[in-house]
């Protein structure tokens, strides 16, 4: 197992209060914690405080679809628990090789048992899902306590990438886009169950794209593109425009801060060009939590439907 210690000097503390993951900060055990994704598929989080920490590599096997399991399970045989000190524990997980949702487990798949008193038989369960959805605790779990995380540390190193990303990144400044991506924000492979990377990166001449989790995350999240296309059903609607690099966005007359450059927008083809189909997609998009759906008189007209998740939690896909 390769676990690097958190080295804050080398890391950018985004202080996102975990709102990025939908984690509630309303109920707090008072446990200052940091989640630190370290190397590739390894993730380590540190919990400080006077509590015993147990890893629970719980997925939701048998509950949802195969996609669900693939996306969020961590490999129980690869997880470890160790003590850094009497007051700090480290739990590390490794995703299944097939998993593509790098951070999904934080919000949905991971359960951590916290036992504030090791001599007590009661264990309070905390799951990522409940952290995200604190209004829906497990029934009958009176002792349920959600916890919050005080900060997030992500390794987002500025610098050269050594490939075509070095051309993409300066474009954001060149066009005054309100985003400053770094190398690790881009992906060459991320895809969803329905759409391939090339589908989502259509019209981009570069092999790298920014794709956020609302675009590639699985249906079980309860929102996002996959949820939308599952609601729309067949035929699967092609993507007219997905990620756009700033050059391409300018070439086609895109808005100066088009969400396509942020990796959380798609234009879905309106196959029949009818308002009926357009309206159905729009209505379903809201059920899928799309933050913005362009009006019928939007730039797409009756040719497509623009939807984006501009205010929705979710990191960039690796």
């Amino acid at each position, binding site marked *: 197992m390769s676990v690097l210690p958190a080295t804050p000097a080398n890391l950018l503390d*985004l202080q996102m209060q975990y*709102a*990025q993951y*939908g984690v*509630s*900060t309303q109920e707090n055990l008072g446990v200052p914690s940091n989640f630190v994704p370290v190397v590739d598929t390894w993730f380590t989080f540190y919990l400080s405080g006077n509590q015993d920490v*147990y*890893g*629970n590599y*719980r997925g*939701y096997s048998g*509950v949802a679809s195969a996609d*669900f399991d693939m996306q969020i399970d961590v490999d129980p045989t690869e997880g470890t628990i160790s003590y850094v000190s009497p007051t700090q524990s480290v739990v590390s997980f490794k995703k299944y090789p097939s998993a593509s949702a790098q951070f999904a487990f934080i919000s949905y798949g991971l359960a951590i048992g916290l036992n504030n008193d*090791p001599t007590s038989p009661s*264990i309070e*369960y905390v799951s990522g899902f409940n952290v*995200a*959805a604190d*209004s*829906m605790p*497990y*029934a009958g*779990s009176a002792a349920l306590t959600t916890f919050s995380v005080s900060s997030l540390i992500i390794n*987002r190193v500025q610098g050269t990438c050594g490939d075509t990303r070095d051309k993409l990144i300066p474009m954001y400044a060149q066009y005054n886009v*309100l*985003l*400053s991506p770094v190398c690790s924000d881009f992906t060459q492979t991320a895809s969803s169950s*329905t759409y391939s990377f090339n589908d989502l990166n259509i019209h981009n001449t570069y092999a790298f794209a920014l794709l*956020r989790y609302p675009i590639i995350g699985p249906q*079980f*999240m*309860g*929102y996002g593109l996959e949820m939308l296309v*599952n*609601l729309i*059903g*067949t035929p*699967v609607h092609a993507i007219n425009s997905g990620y756009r690099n700033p050059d391409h966005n300018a070439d086609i007359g895109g*808005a*100066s*801060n*088009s969400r396509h450059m942020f990796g959380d927008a798609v234009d879905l083809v309106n196959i029949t060009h009818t308002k009926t189909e357009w309206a159905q997609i729009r*209505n379903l998009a*809201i059920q899928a*939590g799309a*933050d*913005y*759906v*362009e*009006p*019928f*008189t939007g*730039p797409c*007209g*009756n040719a497509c439907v*623009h939807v984006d998740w501009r*205010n*929705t*939690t*979710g990191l960039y896909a690796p």
Partner: protein
Amino acid sequence: MNIGKLSPLATTIALVLCLGTADAAQEQTKTAGADASNQTILEQFHSSDWHVRSSAFYKLVRPLEDEPPNAAKLNHGKQIDPTIRNALISLLSFEADVVAAKERAFEDAIAAHRSPDVMSEEQSEYWATLNQAVGGLNDPRALDVLLKPSVISGGYNNTHAIAQFGAPVLPRLILLYRMRPDKFSRDYLTVVFADILRSGTVTDESTLKALKEIFLTRSYDSDRGTRLSALAGLIALFDSDSKARVREIASSDPYTFVNPRGQAVFPLREQAELLLHHRELPPASPLPTPR
């Protein structure tokens, strides 16, 4: 249904109020005042040219740079001067009417086989940002505007903005739901109802009863999207009747399709099952033995 979008912070708008001055960007946290320069800006809201209106708008409200991966920025709505608040609400109301009129013209053009007039991407982005700004004001005076069809249909950002008003607006929304029997209103209001209910602030028995009736009825709607939002409401209610209906959806909702990999998928059944699981079951696997 947004089972993963429950944190209010998740939809905090990425906007900040700026003063209508040249150094606005450096003054992001200041409270705005309706001073003379702002007055000039507000007058531009009445221009017949959307370029002028949007330019004036962006002098008052501007998006901030995203901190990757995405922004959850401050909303200074409560600090905004009432004059500016009112002007922003009026501007959205005006633009909503413009969008509605354009839509009618669009349909006329299509029917007449003419090229329809559509927004530019910049105009669409302005519309989206204006929606976000007014929604983020959390000002009850904006409720009527947010309920306009062209606004409420603009995305979860807008339905959530309405839901943020919480339990106090429910009696009015329920009345509206009953008075506007069109499917369009029902669908969006159902989303709002579920969102409010999930906040856990609804305690009035008669309101809960009315919502239960709405969700149970909508859970049989022919539209799968409507059934999905009703499902979210039933899960939030989770009394015995609601639970029973959710179980029924989990086992027999008819909506299915064959995905690109040739698998038959039942999205609503899966969602219902997932939500039931999270409401009812203890963690699926035992914890390791405590050391």
